[in-house]
């Protein structure tokens, strides 16, 4: 089971969904803070939902306020980077680039892509955590031996 979990994680890395920062988060988790990673990721979901909504609204305006969009995306990129959400982060970078050159279509296209990546990441990470939770207690029992 442990190996399955490790494989799951490895796949997430190999497919570029997560990067080394996620490992940094895991290293900060300990017995005193056993749910640290999940807590941070939950905060990320909440924050992201708010940002996605704001960006969506901003994209409906005409003409687009590129500096506002870039600012929102800067926040999104920052938090994605902080949890190791590699693919989402790279979509954020692309979006910012479109903002910089005032490419409205580029922004809208990239945003769709970003939402897709975000949704996929969320699903995969949820599965990972669910699995980890299942085998968690077993792991602890082994450790106490």
């Amino acid at each position, binding site marked *: 089971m442990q190996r399955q979990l490790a494989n799951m994680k490895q796949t997430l890395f190999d497919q570029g969904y997560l990067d080394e*920062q996620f490992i*940094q988060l895991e*290293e*900060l988790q*300990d017995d005193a803070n056993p749910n640290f990673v999940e807590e941070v990721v939950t905060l990320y979901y909440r*924050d992201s939902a708010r940002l996605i909504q704001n960006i969506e609204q901003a994209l409906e305006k005409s003409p687009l306020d590129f500096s506002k969009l870039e600012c929102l995306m800067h926040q999104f990129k920052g*938090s994605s*980077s902080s949890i190791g959400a590699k693919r989402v982060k790279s979509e954020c970078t692309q979006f910012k680039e479109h903002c910089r050159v005032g490419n409205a279509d580029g922004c809208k296209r990239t945003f769709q892509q970003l939402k897709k990546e975000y949704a996929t990441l969320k699903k995969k990470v949820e599965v990972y955590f669910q699995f980890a939770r299942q085998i968690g207690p077993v792991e602890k029992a082994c450790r106490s031996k």
Partner: protein
Amino acid sequence: MGMAAADGQFHVLAVDDSLIDRKLIERLLKTSSFQVTTVDSGSKALEFLGWHGSERNMFNETSISPKIHQEVEVNLVITDYCMPGMTGYDLLKKIKESAFLRDIPVVIMSSENVPSRITRCLEEGAEEFFLKPMKLSDVNKLRPHMMRTKFKNENEKPEKEEIITIGEADSDMEKIQRAQSLQQHNNNNDNDDDNNNNTKRKSMDEGLSPDRTRPRYSDLTVMSN
């Protein structure tokens, strides 16, 4: 580790408008046995530090008594650069311009690697500049800055050797640099300005303090931006 235990805990004030980053930096700092206070803006940081709006720089008249009432001692301020309203740079400036706060070491974090930004901050008196996201190895570099100031305040001479081995120096160059600046500090005990200048000059001489930021630069070449 022994040094920290002997001196009691260091208290770090972390400033970041992002909730996630505040949670992260708090965990990083606590893992390294620092006491932590987090605030979400530069103005709240100044409030916490006991900076009063009516305190001016030495060129303005002020009748405020020079006794600052700082409830809690802060040994280091770590701040994000990009924040709405008062940026990390603005906060750094205010701290360094304040007669009562300027001895507190300030460290800047940023998600963007902009050489001119880094230079500006170091010139203004920031001890170091880190690229986000911060890692444990970065946090390990904070302790020497806090110890240098604490010892100066308590008028004790630091044991050079121990300070060099605490935290991870990325390179021998950095170890030598630290030893040199400590040597300088010991020689000019009352002259912290000199010390600051020496450190700054070192950074300038090496051009954007490559030793301090080298690991970050190499990180960044991997992460195409």
